[in-house]
């Protein structure tokens, strides 16, 4: 390469009409040579695996560490938990419900982390949204329909995010400080809203009324076993068809695409996971009576995951979030409206935190002043980072929050099964977090040095 002699075979320039067309007549390069250099299209499994290894070496370790971590947690706790109860159906569902709040809050935090910012306030912004909804559905006071209460709660959270985001982006205050102040402020707001009404600061979701039940069922409700199979089949079929059609279209047009075998493996994997989840959830997990079916919370988490994955990976807005996180100056020069994109990321962060807060209230069966928002937000950040989202911006996905949330929930659950006190849970979770950040930092260093000496 680097042939210094100009190639005489270059065809003269064709006049260019459309601004979207390349300015140079590129199709004429090297009479009849393929448009796409052979190196660019990896079509076989081996090439694809090599490209994946290259990405990992280049600092894109992605989900690999967290998946390995999850496997390790499962093996260890299954081995040492009393009566090997860790992998029992009841405990798996329980573990998932315990993790759901962390997962959703971690997905919320991802929006801030992708920009290289942080939002410390979500530990109380979420609960503020929750307490608004819980108060609004109370039959003895406002008695709002559950859906209206949820909408108002989430809008309130979005507004909070907008205010904080505006302070960060327009006034250029550091997000750490603004949201730290937010953590305090909304702790206070939570206490104020809690005290409203005749509930002595403990509005609960324990009543039999429809609207109260609806909020309670966010975490504790479930669909019937048959419905579970149908819904999971639809989800797997839809996602699988989408994936297969996209991959095969890209293969046909010679674009970078995984080989057929890999597409099939991915779809089979999705199907296996789907079947396993439904099967586990359909096992009767009640000590007395019947308690079976996929919990609503799984679909709420999957819904948030799907929506934010779509937003981040398939839309222009998502692309701009990554660009700003990677190189704000490049984004600005590319004409991206950096300020408004960043503000909206804070809105989405707080909005998603509101969903997490609703799940939290449902898990607790009401709201009280026992909410430990500081710990919630730290676990949310930890879950996102453990899942593979970088604190330095530009790297991470919604799914990382889900996997990191599972790790944290798994540790919590496993420690509980072992009868270990909470101090050990803190210490282990902290150690895992250090491990995750180390992987992030080391892989970044790897990517910085990977470019050197390569032509």
């Amino acid at each position, binding site marked *: 390469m680097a042939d210094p002699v100009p190639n005489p075979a270059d065809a003269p320039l064709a006049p260019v009409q459309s601004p979207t067309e390349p300015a140079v007549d590129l199709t004429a390069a090297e009479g009849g040579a393929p*448009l796409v250099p052979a190196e660019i299209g990896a079509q076989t499994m081996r090439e694809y695996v090599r490209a994946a290894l290259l990405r990992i070496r280049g600092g894109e370790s992605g989900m690999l560490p967290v998946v390995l971590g999850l496997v390790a947690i499962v093996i260890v706790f299954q081995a040492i938990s009393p009566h090997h109860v860790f992998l029992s159906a009841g405990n798996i569902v329980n573990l998932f419900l315990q993790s759901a709040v962390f997962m959703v809050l971690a997905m919320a935090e991802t929006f801030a982390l992708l920009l290289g910012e942080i939002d410390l306030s979500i530990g109380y912004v979420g609960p503020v949204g929750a307490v608004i909804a819980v108060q609004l559905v109370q039959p003895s006071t406002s008695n709002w329909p559950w859906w209206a209460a949820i909408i108002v709660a989430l809008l309130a959270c979005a507004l909070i995010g907008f205010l904080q985001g505006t302070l960060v982006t327009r006034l250029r205050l550091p997000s750490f400080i603004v949201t730290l102040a937010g953590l305090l402020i909304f702790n206070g707001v939570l206490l104020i809203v809690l005290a409203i009404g005749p509930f002595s600061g403990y509005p609960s979701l324990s009543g039999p009324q429809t609207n109260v039940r609806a909020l309670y069922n966010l975490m504790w409700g479930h669909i019937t076993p048959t419905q579970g199979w149908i819904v999971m089949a639809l989800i797997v079929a839809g996602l699988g068809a989408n994936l297969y059609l996209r991959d095969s279209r890209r293969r046909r047009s010679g674009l970078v695409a995984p080989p057929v075998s890999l597409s099939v493996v991915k779809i089979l994997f999705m199907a296996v996971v789907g079947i396993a989840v439904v099967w586990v959830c359909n096992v009767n997990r009640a000590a007395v009576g019947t308690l079976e079916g996929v919990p609503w919370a799984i679909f709420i988490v999957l819904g948030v995951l799907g929506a934010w994955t779509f937003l981040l990976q398939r839309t222009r807005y998502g692309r701009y979030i990554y660009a700003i996180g990677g190189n704000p100056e490049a984004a600005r020069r590319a004409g991206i409206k950096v300020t408004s994109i960043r503000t909206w990321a804070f809105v989405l962060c707080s909005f998603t935190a509101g969903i997490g807060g609703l799940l939290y209230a449902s898990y607790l069966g009401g709201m009280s002043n026992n909410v430990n928002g500081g710990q919630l937000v730290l676990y949310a950040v930890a879950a996102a980072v453990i899942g593979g989202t970088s604190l330095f911006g530009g790297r991470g996905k919604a799914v990382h929050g889900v996997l990191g949330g599972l790790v944290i929930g798994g540790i919590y659950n496993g420690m509980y099964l072992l009868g270990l006190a909470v101090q050990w849970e803190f210490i282990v979770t902290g150690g895992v977090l250090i491990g995750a950040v180390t992987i992030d930092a080391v892989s970044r260093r790897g990517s910085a040095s990977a470019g050197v000496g390569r032509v």
Partner: protein
Amino acid sequence: MAEATGDEPLLKVRGLYKSFGAVQALAEVDLDLPAGEVTSLSGDNGAGKSVLIKCISGIYEPDRGHTYWEGRPVRIRSAHDSAALGIETVYQDLALADNLDIVQNMFLGRERLRHRLLDEDAMERAAAETLAGLRVTTVRSIRQPVGSLSGGQRQSVAVAKAVMWNSKLVIMDEPTAALGVTQTAMVLDLMRRLRDHGLAVLVISHNLNDVFAVSDRIAVLYLGRMVVQDKASAFDRQTVVEYMTTGGLGVAGTRVGSGDGAVGDG
């Protein structure tokens, strides 16, 4: 050397004047950039090279002066104006996002959409075609993050990004400053290819080896004045250095007095 296109250069700058407060950065600068030629802009630090390219690319608006694009008078007031004309600038820092892949970087800010969603297939195809046309074939995958590329490859991606948009003039600021020998050769080769495709290239470089290796024309700024611009064959290293360091007082005399004597001395 024959003129590549008609008599009119692609971009013609006349009497450009720019000052920042009391500091006069550019004084009555004239510059011609013909299509299909690589023009080197040389000058010592503080000579006004960066100010000049920023005036051309719309970052700064000149105080006085005229700009002609394909013979028509134009005013370039913003980066948007220059992009609309077909002027793309590759800055020294390249403005690439390391976490995005090659395709994503090349289309940053100008993504193609289908049904309001990113049209990855169309973008990837166009990016692959552009890279193939520039014969940038050393990258392993067009979908690898830019952070994993070498300096020369990054420069190539930045250039490819610049030429994707129907651009007719590509301005490059110190493209080889941070590169090793092989990668420098790769970038110089790329510049020749742009020229062969009929684009005008304006390159700022401190490295006289590069200047002579690739330039068709050389222009030298000295303390905000354009002291000379001519075909590269009219210069040698020593004359360029003298123009850069003295504004050409010595050389000008020599050339007027004894024709190509300066060339003989070199």
